[in-house]
């Protein structure tokens, strides 16, 4: 994605749907600065009561892994099922484990 068109820099938007939950990535937008990015995020991504908190982050501040990293980053965990709590009984009422 080009980050240097005439509409200003790109900002990635994260919305928290309820207090206490993690902010989730919902998309991105153009804005000249951080205040305008926040306002635009409010208009574009919270029109239907999607959230209680918004984060906007400059696109260039995000460091992403690339497909070439897949082997070294993610494959080693494929055969290590003991790292996930699948063999335990979930406590009643616990939703966000």
């Amino acid at each position, binding site marked *: 994605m080009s980050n240097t068109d005439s*509409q200003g820099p790109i900002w990635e938007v994260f919305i928290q749907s309820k207090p206490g939950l993690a902010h989730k990535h919902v998309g991105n937008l*153009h*804005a000249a*600065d951080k205040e*305008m990015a926040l*306002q*635009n995020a*409010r*208009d*574009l991504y919270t029109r239907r009561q999607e959230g209680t908190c918004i984060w906007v982050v400059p696109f260039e501040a995000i460091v992403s892994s690339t497909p070439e990293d897949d082997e070294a980053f993610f494959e080693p965990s494929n055969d290590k099922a003991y790292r996930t709590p699948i063999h335990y009984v979930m406590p009643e009422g616990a939703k966000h484990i």
Partner: protein
Amino acid sequence: MTKNEALVKYCLRLGDSSLILGQRMAEWCSNGPVLEEDIAMSNIGLDLFGQSRTMLTYAGEIEGKGRTENDFAFKRLEREFFNNLMSERPNGHFGDTVARNLFLSAYTYHLYKKLSSSSDSTIAAFATKSLKEVTYHLRHSAEWVVRLGDGTEESHSKTQQSVDDLWEYTADLFAMNEVDELLIKENVAIDLNEIKPLWDNTINEVLERATLTRPEDIFMQSGSLNGMHSEALGHLLTEMQFLPRAYPNAKW
């Protein structure tokens, strides 16, 4: 003039001003400078339509002649509209629009704050709900005026021109007549002389941040209280009222 007659007029003023500015914002739909602003301005328009519906419906109830919100919006002529003159100013370029919206949202922000303790419970509820919306409209327009005013040389001079051109319509916002006199006594309406210094403060603050100069009060337009409007309103109504007039009682 009875209290009810005054109340109908007062509700039409509030409702019409929201309706006409809402229609102006709707004109930006699909014409915004960037996608983000297109949506922002359309959203603001929708907020304003919602506000006008409450007031026009209420005006119809008090009047008691069976007129609905749609009758008020689509079956009146220019001279029967009581929106302030500022709200009908054409969109012009983006700087004209945000300057106009700054003047209006600073006005409704302070007005609705006070009206939320009106003795009329419908007006109080309307003001309380609308205040949340216009707080955002004020933020949107003020932040843009600051960025354009304190932007490039070109954006600065264009926005200063917008402010200068619109200034003569600001006095009309604070005009009052016997409607106000009667309703202020009943604690329904707000004395606009109380709103003016608050509006002045907000406007001065924003203009200063925007490095823009506040124009002098030289020639000031008036007339909205008596339904006297500029030519611009007729053109707006022509478009807004076309469908219900061409196809009466059309349904989705």
